[in-house]
């Protein structure tokens, strides 16, 4: 994917492979050859099931891979600079003012023994050189912006004193306090009730509109992507299998897995539709089947599918799919 607007992308992930390095040089790739660009102001949703590698991809961008998992090859360029080869100190300096991350479970991402106002103020003090007083005031105003009622009082609270929705707002206030240009979100609303989810999604949307920040949003919920993002990447077994504009892709998916996801999930607006489960389950990444990783579960499979991994190719203007049989998927799902 190149910059849709013609300018250079803000984030460019190129041929990223993430995995476990085993003693003796043999390594196991969990994410394999993932490439995508995110333009300034663009909102990309990455969907996939558990184990598809969507969260690891996001964490690799943020430099927060779990212990033992590392980037085996590829580049992650932010604003033209490769994050993976720069000094740790330089990379840390980008985290906060340029790139910020929002996690699924705010209770584990917030420091339990520090008042939430102080946690929000820490970034502006460190990165923007604000005094404690200025940063404290900024924290309260950020909390007000994220829709926290009575922010001055709540700033003195500890995380455990707040509800899940408020904690998620605190984390968003913390993430945007230094005005980042790229927001990375890892299932930020999965732990929230549906009414609170809507509030948080609208808040994220508004913050991005106001600041022009780009968004990479990882989730398993297709409807959430539909309401939040403009671009979509579908991951399966460590690969991007389809990418394109959200609405167009949902309307006419060109990869059987994308289609399977759409047909297996209940749609509130079409209660009478029968759900069609995807047979089988995802492969173990250490033991991928030969060829297309989706082939064993695919209804469109033909003999040549197991010969080699299908490349991600443009099948329509602005649409990429990694499927030899993509031309047979022409049906429009309403």
């Amino acid at each position, binding site marked *: 994917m190149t910059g849709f607007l013609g300018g250079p992308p803000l984030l460019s992930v190129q041929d990223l492979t993430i995995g476990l390095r085993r003693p003796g040089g043999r390594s196991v790739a969990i994410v394999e050859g993932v490439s995508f660009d995110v333009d300034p102001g663009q909102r990309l949703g990455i969907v996939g099931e558990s184990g598809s590698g969507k969260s690891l991809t996001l964490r690799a961008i943020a430099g927060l891979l779990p212990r033992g998992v590392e980037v085996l090859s590829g580049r992650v360029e932010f604003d033209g600079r490769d994050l993976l080869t720069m000094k740790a100190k330089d990379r840390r300096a980008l985290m906060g003012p340029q790139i910020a991350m929002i996690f699924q479970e705010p209770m584990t991402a917030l420091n339990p023994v520090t008042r939430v106002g102080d946690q929000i103020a820490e970034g502006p003090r460190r990165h923007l050189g604000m005094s404690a007083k200025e940063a404290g005031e900024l924290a309260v105003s950020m909390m007000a912006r994220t829709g926290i009622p009575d922010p001055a009082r709540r700033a003195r609270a500890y995380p455990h004193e707040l*509800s*899940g929705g408020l904690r998620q707002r605190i984390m968003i206030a913390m993430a945007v306090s230094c005005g980042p240009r790229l927001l990375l979100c890892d299932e930020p609303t999965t732990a929230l009730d549906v009414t609170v989810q809507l509030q948080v*999604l609208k808040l994220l949307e508004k913050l991005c509109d106001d600041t022009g920040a780009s968004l990479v949003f990882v989730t398993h919920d297709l409807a959430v992507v539909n309401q939040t993002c403009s671009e979509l990447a579908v991951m399966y077994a460590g690969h991007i299998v389809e990418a394109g504009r959200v609405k167009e892709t*949902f309307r006419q998916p060109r990869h059987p897995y994308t289609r399977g996801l759409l047909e*297996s*999930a209940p749609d*509130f607006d079409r209660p009478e539709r029968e*759900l*069609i489960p995807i047979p089988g389950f995802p492969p173990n990444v250490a033991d991928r089947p030969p060829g297309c990783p989706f082939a064993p579960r695919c209804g469109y499979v033909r003999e040549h599918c197991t010969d080699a991994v299908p490349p991600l190719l443009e099948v329509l203007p602005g649409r990429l799919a990694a499927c030899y049989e993509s031309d047979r998927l022409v049906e429009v799902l309403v």
Partner: protein
Amino acid sequence: MSPVSAARTASAETTDTSMLRVSGLTKSYSRGTSLLSRLGSSGPSTLKALDGVDLDLRPGEILALVGESGSGKSTLAKILVGSTTATGGQVFYRGTGALARRDRESSRRVQMVFQDPYSSLNPRLTVGRMLAELLLLHKIVPRSEVRAESVRLLNLVGLEEEVLGAYPSQFSGGQRQRLAIARAIAVRPDVLIADEPVSALDVSVQATILDLFTSLRAELGLSILFIAHNLAVVQHLSDRVAVMYLGRIVEIADTRELFAHPRHPYTRALIDSIPRMREGSVNDAFELDGEPPSPYDVPAGCRFHPRCALASEICRANDPPLLQVRPAHESACLKADELAAIPLPEPPQELP
């Protein structure tokens, strides 16, 4: 709704025919009385998890229970399976015997399937041992028939005989949930309580588990209380829906009726908050402000009034009872008629 269940629901108008009925059920928890917990907290010290719940589960129906976290859904489930006791109120089984005493026989009748199939199965028991233990303890079949019965159960949930010797860790999430369901139906219960049974599963396998509930209802005549937060799933699976808010049922109706004619503003807000696959179906009118209030301090009057766009003086003064607002449709809202006048968002246009 299948014709069978429609006939069943129609013939189940009187509460005497209900499979399970709760009446005026309450459950409160007190804050700890240790010095530390008294120093650490102020304000009311009693949490009302359930605050007067009346509900009946009809034979052969799938009744969904929806509501925010903290609304009391799981507390109700725990009381029904007997893993905790109610503070007040009663549970009736088949119109007669109260389920107050939890002997082996009454616990057999109501079985539970939990959200997390990873932590709800004993990792040290093979599938065969797990099922055999239950079948023998409850004297479901003589020892000589245990294996045949185990295979029958596995086939019912879509698993094969080969898995008898396997441990839970060898299964995927969806298969584990099948095992948990096999375990629940092994003792031939009348009622299955499923607490968020698909929310920990991947989308592509959710559908198979939902289908399994439908087929078990048809084959075994089970009555199912299905606790869920995903309204698209609820709409797909259930015959009736009960909406809980802060420890009380605030609206209950047949599924189609409830989603087409919501008569409680909270139900309406839930519906309007669902992320949709189509454009133009989201309505801002009923986006909720603020957070759910603390169950330690339930608002006076209507418990929903602080977040309700329609609330007025009478709502602050009166605690509305659950009343019939349309045929087979009850709501606990004093403004139900006013809400009816606000149209639901237009159904999204079909794409050309």
